[in-house]
């Protein structure tokens, strides 16, 4: 694991210019280009079920977020390879937004940490293998809230 991180750092440095000064910053964790990444949550991203994913994220029972989370997804996706998802929230102190697709082989799609000053408003695009629920999990003030919406994925074109 450590080796892997080091390798990633080295590569990151190369793109940053690869000069000695940068390497020094890198060693001090002060990478100028900002590519000192946190560790990827492999357990959560490998989870096959919602329960496993929530466990990996340390979520016990999330509150109902139907009223406090605005999840915008298309009702029908003309193509499952690109499904736009927007998650916004009216809750105060939103620290984290997480998006899941409950029928995908790995249910966790993306997770966002929002530092203070960043608004609770995120748009991204996910793949969906079939008609499924898109689930948004919002962490605010130390609590988790959850809401979901179904997206129908249709058979497209002439199919040939």
């Amino acid at each position: 694991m450590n080796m892997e991180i080091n390798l990633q750092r080295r590569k990151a440095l190369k793109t940053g210019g690869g000069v000695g000064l940068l390497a020094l910053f890198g060693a001090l964790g002060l990478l100028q280009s900002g590519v000192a990444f946190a560790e990827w949550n492999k357990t959560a991203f490998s989870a096959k079920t919602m329960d496993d994913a929530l466990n990996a994220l340390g979520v016990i029972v999330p509150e109902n977020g139907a009223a406090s989370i605005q999840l915008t997804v298309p009702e029908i996706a003309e193509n499952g390879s690109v499904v736009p998802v927007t998650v916004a929230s009216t809750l105060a102190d939103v620290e984290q937004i997480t998006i899941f697709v409950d029928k995908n082989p790995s249910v966790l799609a993306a997770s966002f940490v929002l530092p203070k000053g960043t608004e609770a408003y995120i748009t991204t695009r996910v793949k969906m293998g079939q008609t499924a629920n898109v689930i948004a999990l919002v962490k605010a003030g130390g609590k988790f809230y959850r809401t979901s919406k179904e997206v129908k994925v249709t058979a497209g074109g002439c199919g040939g």
Partner: protein
Amino acid sequence: MNNSTVKKLIPLLVLATSCAATAAESEISDSDRIAQYREMISDGNPADFDEMRGEELWKSVAGPKQATLEKCDLGKGAGVVKGVYTELPRYFKDTGKVQDLESRLVTCMTTLQGIPEEVITAKPFATDKKASDISSLATYVVGQSKGIKMAVSTKHPQSKEAYEIGKRIFNYRAGPYDFACSTCHATSNVRIRMQDLPNLNVKKDAQTAYASWPAYRVSQGLTRSFQWRLNDCFRQQRFPEPKFASEATVALTMFLAVSANGGEYAGPGLKR
């Protein structure tokens, strides 16, 4: 089955015994939902990357002659890219032929850069493993016509003839399925599965359809050129393969481009 599915099924079941006109009305809502989906993905078109790649290729030396394409004449003089796509296909004196953008790019790559035609046309379409130079170049060129109205001329007799032949190819029924382009694209307000089909005999549809190609195809993750669009139509018509940038495809392009005249060019587009 959740609530929304049930709600959607009920009107269909109720309509089942009534006439087709009512059924058509209930389908509008699904079409609207598709329109909503398209609107939601309209921002952030990955075709931009192909445009960037094409621009770089245009300005880079290549081929045995180690030349760029910056002296390529696409119809408005050597090196002019702005607005050229809205007047293509057109008749070119130097080749004595009517050419569309892609066949003209072949001419420039052979004459200016010395790349043999067979090399360029062997694999003219991008795949998920390999980008296509000619396709990226086309994406770059069309991007320079955004917002300009289509104005393809048939004044030259050869242009007029290409248009007439293109119209006939549009209606040419053949193959095991008896399909022509017109089988799917000469009726208004119909669709294949969920995909609305433009009626290319109607000005407004023809303008919208033509103006959105080349396009990034979400389902393939690739930016597709107009020649590819025609190629894939013929595939689905169960035809044999049209040769790349051949007289047949250029003539058909001429017919479709003229049908789109007056419409504002809006590509490269973004499609399902």
